[in-house]
């Protein structure tokens, strides 16, 4: 029997096996190898649109199933094997596969638990912190922990994207031409200059379209790499502060052109 199977319906060969075991009502501790193997092979035949890199994994599993099946068919010739090696209950060739399936099944179930939590959490909204920087005395602003890595940056960007979701533009903007990292380098540096060389991470992203947000983020990473800006994290809040180290970026812009 063959029918259409969508590739993305399964997240891997183990997932497909579990699906078959469930559908054929097989006892996972006593798998009829012949039946499962033939069903599995029928399935991967039906998956004609397998992407190449994933197909190999499904094929490896097919080979494994066939190997187990054939090992189970092997008669044990008494003359060839030392009596002492023959346990009363020899190792079952299926054992390793069953262990893997059971282990995988645990995490597959855990994943669906997470999905429930994800849905519940998406029902709840929060707001970004109020900007109190103008009320803060200078010396309080200098309490920094200069230990910002790329994960902190990503985390700040992720938060920003979530906050942007809540801002609906009041009118549809005319499609703008795409901006480049190079142009955006100038813009970010100008914004920082106008703010006396210091701005909160989120202040550098006054845009609502995803493309511009992403380009601006890349620009910030580029400026960090070239040491035009320095990023710090305050103790009190998770928000990052961007500090301008260099006002004239003519050289950096030229270098950037050469490298790209």
């Amino acid at each position, binding site marked *: 029997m063959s029918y259409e199977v969508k590739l993305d319906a399964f997240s891997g060969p183990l997932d497909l096996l579990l699906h078959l075991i469930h559908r054929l009502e097989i006892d996972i501790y006593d798998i009829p190898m012949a039946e499962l193997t033939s069903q599995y092979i029928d399935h991967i035949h039906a998956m004609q649109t397998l992407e190449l890199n994933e197909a190999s994994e499904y094929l490896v599993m097919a080979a494994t199933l066939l190997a187990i099946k054939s090992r189970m068919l092997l008669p044990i010739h008494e003359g060839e094997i030392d009596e002492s090696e023959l346990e009363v209950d020899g190792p079952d060739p299926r054992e390793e596969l069953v262990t893997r399936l059971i282990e995988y099944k645990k995490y*597959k179930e855990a994943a669906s638990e997470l999905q429930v939590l994800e849905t519940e959490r998406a029902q*709840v909204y929060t707001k970004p912190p109020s900007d109190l920087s103008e009320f803060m005395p200078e010396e309080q602003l200098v309490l920094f922990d200069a230990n910002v890595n790329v994960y902190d940056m990503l*985390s700040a960007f992720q938060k920003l994207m979530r906050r942007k*979701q809540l801002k609906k533009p009041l009118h549809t903007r005319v499609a703008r031409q795409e901006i480049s990292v190079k142009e955006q380098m100038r813009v970010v540096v100008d914004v920082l200059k106008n703010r006396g060389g210091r701005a909160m991470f989120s202040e550098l992203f006054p845009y609502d379209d995803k493309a511009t947000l992403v380009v601006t983020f890349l620009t910030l990473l580029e400026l960090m790499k070239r040491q035009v800006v320095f990023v710090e994290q305050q103790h009190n809040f998770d928000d990052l502060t961007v500090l301008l180290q260099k006002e004239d970026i003519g050289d950096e812009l030229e270098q950037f052109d050469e490298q790209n």
Partner: protein
Amino acid sequence: MNSNNLMSKIEALLFVVGDEGMSVKQLAQYLEVEPMDIEAGLSELQTQYEESEVRGITLKQLAGSYQITTKPALADAIKKLVENPTNQVLTAASLEVLAIIAYKQPITRAEVEDLRGVKSERPIATLVSRALVQEVGRAEGTGRAILYGTTKEFLNYFGLKSLQELPPLPDAAQAEEEQETDLFLTKFQETFNQN
């Protein structure tokens, strides 16, 4: 300071810090009272929010800090504000990888792949870019493979106070055994009833 006064201050602070949230320790520090009083104030405040149908907000403890959030029941009203209501949810593959990392951290990509029986580069890249997992160190031995673990954002994304709050990992073997025991008991009950 009487407790109403304290609660109003807690509410004001949590309102200002928004989704950054504040821990009991921080609140105690800023309001100059004992952490115990803060805890009492928070729980009273939460009770009042939850019991009042007039209020659209409530308190939630996420990733170790308290935040003011909207009530889940009001999600539909808020969604109208949001430009793109289809929140980018994680794919099945990403969730699977994330579950493995969450329960088995610190863990290398190779270990994740062994468990899933399938390449997992892409889901891991997605999870890193969404700040749900990050590098937490390097494995010993050759290659010094990256070890992955979950982030604070992970807790926030799933509405968890801490990793201890993760649902217990289902134990397949245990479930099977329970079924068998149940079966035995029902059989026993049947036999017992017949006699």
